């Protein structure tokens, strides 16, 4: 057998797992991408309908509701899909860890990456559709800021996925809790409101939530003159980095126990 260096081996494992995950996601009826598209669209439609009763004008700061909600939902989905997707990422590949080069960590990273990729595709598609449907400039005005927010959000979510994947194997009952926590987070992360539309008194509390910072900063990158005052990337980053390393440490501490069960 020919000699391969570590990077070649790692790349081969990532590729193999990526194709394996891709097949299970999209394999059977090839409807996977359709479902991935449908979910955010349904969220956008429900929120838009609801808010057209609650608020006059149909927009926030000149941004039509569907586009405003769309950006928030997609930002939140990056977080949610990666974190909850992590729960099953080890159990779904348990048989494959008999091969010494395949580690649970690889499966977690690959799955998170695939989730990100799907949402990015949906994002591009919806942006294109939105531009066509609404008479509104949907192309982001600061793509680099968006890229930065997405990268940091990915690191943050991946760090949590390391933790949820271990919980998914060792404490399956507790994994339900993770799914339940997503709902309140959905309401607290500014998906359907700009921070500035909230009473000033609550800002202090709302701003603890790093996801709010991600959502607002993503909008700031998307729409010119969006008032994202009070949120910033650095705060998100200062969450993401410790969470990422904490996740890695937690995984390393449990890496043998995860394989035993």
């Amino acid at each position, binding site marked *: 057998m020919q000699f391969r260096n570590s990077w070649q081996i790692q790349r081969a494992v990532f*590729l*193999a797992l990526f*194709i394996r995950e891709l*097949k299970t996601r999209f394999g059977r009826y090839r409807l996977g991408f359709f479902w991935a598209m449908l979910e955010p669209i349904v969220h956008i439609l429900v929120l838009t309908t609801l808010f057209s009763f609650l608020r006059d004008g149909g927009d926030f700061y000149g941004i039509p509701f569907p586009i405003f909600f769309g950006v928030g939902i997609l930002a939140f989905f990056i977080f949610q899909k990666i974190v909850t997707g992590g729960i099953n990422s080890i159990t779904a590949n348990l*048989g494959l860890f008999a*091969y010494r*080069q395949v580690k649970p960590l690889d499966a977690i990273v690959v799955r998170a990456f695939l989730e990100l990729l799907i949402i990015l595709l949906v994002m591009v598609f919806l942006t294109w559709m939105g531009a066509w449907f609404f008479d509104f400039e949907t192309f982001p005005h600061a793509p680099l800021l968006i890229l930065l927010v997405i990268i940091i959000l990915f690191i943050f979510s991946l760090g949590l996925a390391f933790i949820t994947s271990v919980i998914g194997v060792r404490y399956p009952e507790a994994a339900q809790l993770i799914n339940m926590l997503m709902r309140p987070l959905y309401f607290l992360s500014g998906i359907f409101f700009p921070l500035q539309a909230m009473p000033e008194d609550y800002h202090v509390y709302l701003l603890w939530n790093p996801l709010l910072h991600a959502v607002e900063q993503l909008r700031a990158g998307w729409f010119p003159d969006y008032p994202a005052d009070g949120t910033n990337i650095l705060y998100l980053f200062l969450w993401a980095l410790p969470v990422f390393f904490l996740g890695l440490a937690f995984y390393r501490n449990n890496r043998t126990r995860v394989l035993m069960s």
Partner: protein
Amino acid sequence: MIELNNVSKYYPTPKGRKYVFKNLSFALPEKCNIGVLGLNGSGKSTLLRMIAGTDYPNEGQINVTGSISWPLGLAGGTQGSMTGRENAEFVSRIYGDNLDQMAERLDYILNFSELGDYFNMPVKSYSSGMRSRLLFGISMAFDFDVYLIDEITAVGDIRFRKKSQQALHEKRNCSNYIMVSHNVNDLIQECNQLLILDKGKVRLFSDTREGLQFYKEVVQLNK
């Protein structure tokens, strides 16, 4: 080369640590087939898994050079929701095959495992014999320096068992194996060395008869 350096392996229990191995240090000789004997629970499979890199010692190190197969005959190695072909493709990919090599490998595996139409069905629909035929076929499609085998020859019907032994024989020049078996006769026939596990201690015998004698004493003592 396979070398264990001060290796300890234990499982936490409510009554404290249950040691499987304690401060184990030895090197396995190269270029020979090693048979592993030991009573139930003496840690044969654990040792195999640690050498295979799918389990870790709590203390110490295991140094390995050369290519080593995954542990054959133990649980794992296939994912039930994937078809036999997909499983084979996965293994081919993690060993860095390009598409031509993969096609060649898949041909061999399909041929060897004799799975026919089942090759394109999910592995969870396989019988245990079919599953081990697939896994053995996959492993034979590669040339590992060392094969790790846990009671593999006990699985499958007589005809397939003969075929597997034949395939292993054909690899004699480039590959060796470490085999766990309760079938002492098999081990004596096939192996040049015996590794005997007893109460967390390990003894290596280059004379298989001497090893067998020792193993019989171990069995007697534990009766």
